[in-house]
């Protein structure tokens, strides 16, 4: 089921982030305004240190801005406290990280079960098993992260992100730690899962191939959006 494609699911207004450094104030993001519509796949690109990951962290409510507002769906993110933002993430956000961020002491299955368990969901294990089968790891359920290859670990991370059926999926350099062949497979899987669930994807990447798969790219330079060129539609 795909909802009305024109409704913005992420809205950013006047967003700035400044931090104090020994050399004085450092501007990470400067007065950003943007909208991302439901079902879109948006790549945030830019050089290292341009502020891409800072923007992603703020959009996901992991970090707080110095100024400006962010709405996820219709909820104003920073009107909520930390636990309120965590609850919002629980209900609508999925994550994929460059360094996978799997819990080393949990098996693949348990890593996927974790967000459902935290949400107090029922029928946790069957859902997690099904999702792991979906990413091709039905045979690796009881392996610990250190027993899996990088590509397999990222598949577990994808399963963990999609098992909660998120409205928005944030991904930080999802292929950054993988070789190009594995990276391509992961990209394929990511978009395939996205098609099935109809989620909105916001990802940070250096990978041109990945950026090209997105409906549009947002380029950031020195904390500012420099252009929003539309790439070919998905």
């Amino acid at each position, binding site marked *: 089921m795909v909802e009305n494609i024109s409704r913005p699911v992420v809205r950013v207004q006047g967003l700035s982030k400044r931090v104090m450094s020994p050399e004085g104030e450092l501007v990470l993001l400067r007065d950003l305004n943007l909208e991302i519509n439901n079902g879109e796949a948006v790549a945030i690109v830019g050089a290292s240190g341009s502020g891409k990951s800072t923007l992603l962290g703020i959009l996901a409510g992991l*970090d707080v801005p110095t100024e400006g507002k962010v709405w996820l769906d219709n909820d104003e993110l920073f009107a909520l406290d930390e636990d309120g933002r965590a609850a919002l993430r629980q209900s609508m956000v999925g994550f994929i990280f460059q360094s996978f*961020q799997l819990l080393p002491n949990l098996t693949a299955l348990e890593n996927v079960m974790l967000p459902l*368990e935290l949400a107090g969901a029922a029928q946790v294990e069957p859902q997690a098993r099904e999702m792991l089968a979906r990413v091709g790891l039905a045979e690796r359920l009881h392996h610990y992260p250190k027993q899996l290859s990088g590509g397999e670990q990222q598949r577990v991370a994808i399963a963990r992100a999609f098992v909660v059926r998120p409205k928005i999926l944030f991904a930080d350099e999802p292929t950054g730690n993988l070789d190009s062949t594995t990276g391509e497979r992961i990209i394929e899987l990511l978009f395939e899962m996205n098609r099935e669930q109809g989620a909105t994807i916001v990802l940070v990447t250096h990978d041109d191939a990945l950026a090209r798969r997105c409906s549009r790219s947002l380029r950031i330079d020195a904390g500012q959006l420099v252009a929003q060129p539309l790439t070919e539609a998905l």
Partner: protein
Amino acid sequence: MSRQLAATVRMSWRMLRRDWRAGELRVLSLALVIAVASVTSVGFFTDRVRLALENQANTLLGGDLVIISDSVLPAQLSSDATALGLQYSTSVEFPSMVMSGDRSQLSSVKAVEHPYPLHGELRIASERFAPDRGVASVPVPGTVWVDVQLLDQLAVNVGDRLMLGEAEFSIVAILTHEPARASGQLFSIAPRVLLNLEDLERTALITPASRVRHRMLFAGDVTAVAAFRALVEPDLQAGERIEGIEEARPEVRSALDRARRFLGLAAMVSVLLAGVAVATSSQRFIRRHLDSCAVMRCVGGSQQQILSIFMLQMLWLGLLAGAVGCLIGFAAQYVLVEIVGSLADFALPTPSMLPVLFGLLTGLVTQFGFALPPLLHLKNVPSLRVLRRELGALPTRSLSTYGLGFVVLAALIVWQAGDLKLGFYVLAGIVGALVLLAGVAFLLLKGLAAFRHHLFAEWRFGVTHLIRRPLSSVAQVIAFGLGIMVLLLFSVIRDDLLQAWGNSLPADAPNRFLINIQPDQVAPLTAFFEAEGITAPDLFPMIRARLLEINGESVLPNNYENARAQRLMERQFNLSWAEDMQTDNRLTSGQWWSASDEEPQFSVEEGLAKTLGIAIGETLTFTIEGQRVSAKVTSLRSVEWDSFRANFFVIASPGLLEPFPASYMTGFYLPAAEYQILDKMVRQFPNITVIDIAAVMAQVRRIIERVTLAVEYVFLFTLIAGLLVMYSAIYATLDERIRESVILRTLGAGRRRLLNAVIAEFITLGALAGMVAALAASLLGYLLATHLFQLEYHFNGWVWGLGIIGGGVGIGLAGVLGTRKVVNYPPMQALRES
């Protein structure tokens, strides 16, 4: 809300199982299990030893409890005792003249009923000074057992007859030992005549005007005895008093007191070590879960939820490890009892269940004390850590991290010690040692820095590694130093302390006392000793006096609430005078007099001064033979009552008491085989009374021996805990070492080279730690010996050799074994994990 709670509880349990399976909890749970096991086994064991020692001491009292009265004791007492399942035995004691032919002698008559005594035994001999034997009976009606002095004084022998009041008795045995008499009546002068209670009426000696002591002994289960005491004590009438083991002989009490301190110390150090091991391993656990925490926050866990999950996880772990530890502790103390039982005649009563409670509580309290601050920190781990790993790192070992743990540990130590002073000393010692260890370790590291260029390549590498991270190195030296210090304290210094204790009761400690020596007999008696080839002992003058006034205010027994004070005031004091202080006394305040002092002065034993509220500078007035004698108190002394040497509560400066008639007393050691000398002495000096305390001494010596043995075994657990501390200290740095080693190996360092560097680093660490540990152990041993156990302490050079060489080799070996994973870890796997 409750659904949410139930979900959190389920989640915490699942996380515990997952962490366990993943091997995350092994060191922490091992630390907890060993902590609880050592504390409970020590608890169970000391509990049983304590009960056994009290039973031992009770044999000196003759029962668990005795009620003493001037008049016939109410029948209610025996029915109360029966109702509580206690055994009891009545006796009546009074002074009376005994006659045989034309001779008569004042004696202390005691009429007893079977069974008597309830604990310990009567010992009798069939002829003068012959070897004696224990008996489980009392004299049959018509017969008496008497002290050997009475035979001499009446010029009779076993088999002869004597008259007591209107009744005639046959002397069938010589009484050599009587437990209840040993208790508090060492100096009862008149010789004993023991008869059956049934014969008492026949003597017609008990009249309303007689000075009679009625005694009732009680014995039975500890709780029943306590219940009985609580029941009857409030209803005691004037002239009635109750005595338990606490009020028994000072020398036994003093031995027991030391015993408890030794065992308490052993148990306490286990608590401390356990705490350190738990602290190190729970820090590691939390450190490793920072990422998990951030991920959980990221996927929607609330702060409260995540904190609850980890808290509950710690709780389950504490309870489970506690339960396992209690079981192991319970089993271990049975093994201990078996070992001790096979080496000594040591019947231990069943332990109470209190150690289980203490063990569980110790586990939980230690765990939460040390884990709570870092656990609470988990709440502050920002979810952004998933993107920026440097955020929300655990603060380095700071006061706030360990502060709560140390406060909790301090409270536990004081509780376990059951003695504020002991707890305080050990705590002060630990804090002092920590500061000292840190300071000295820092200086030593500085010294090493200057020296390192003279070292071989790999040694230089290992030592440089230590120098580059001074804080972490100092922390490790402290951890190892603490472990080694405890090991030294409990091996070398413990032996020194125990030996010093054993020496406080030397093999030639006096076992016979002579009293009633007349002034004109002092010279002939000294000559008699010399003629028999025995070094003549010091003879002390003794004058009976009653304390009238303190600082001009008259004092009466009723002025005091304390039972001991009342009893002291009811009795006459034995005063003595001397130019010099006895060598085994120690001045605790004031000054001993000098020959030039003209003012008369008193020196008072500090315990007595405390009981009666006497301070330096106050004037004491005694009455002697109807005359008042006053002098100022100018010094207080401590006296080793368990040394068995003659000692006096109050000693006067020369000149004050000489005008009054005095008798003399002395104590000396007589080997058992030479008992005939006594026979000869009594014939030459018939008025002198000989008191044989060999049996009481043997009792105290046995207590010392058994406690020494018990401490040896209790020490095993402390040893295990000490080793665990070092293991956990090594383990705590494992993650960091693996990361470093991987980087070095990636850069081309060979495994052998890395291994040598690790060996060099650990040997250096161990030697440094050993050095500071030896210093700390020597100081702590000195403090414990002189301030707590009142023993003479000699510094032991072995501590240094053992500390430095043992520390270097031991830590070097343990370090390499513990971190061999570092050099064998596949670099790719480490890189992937990080």
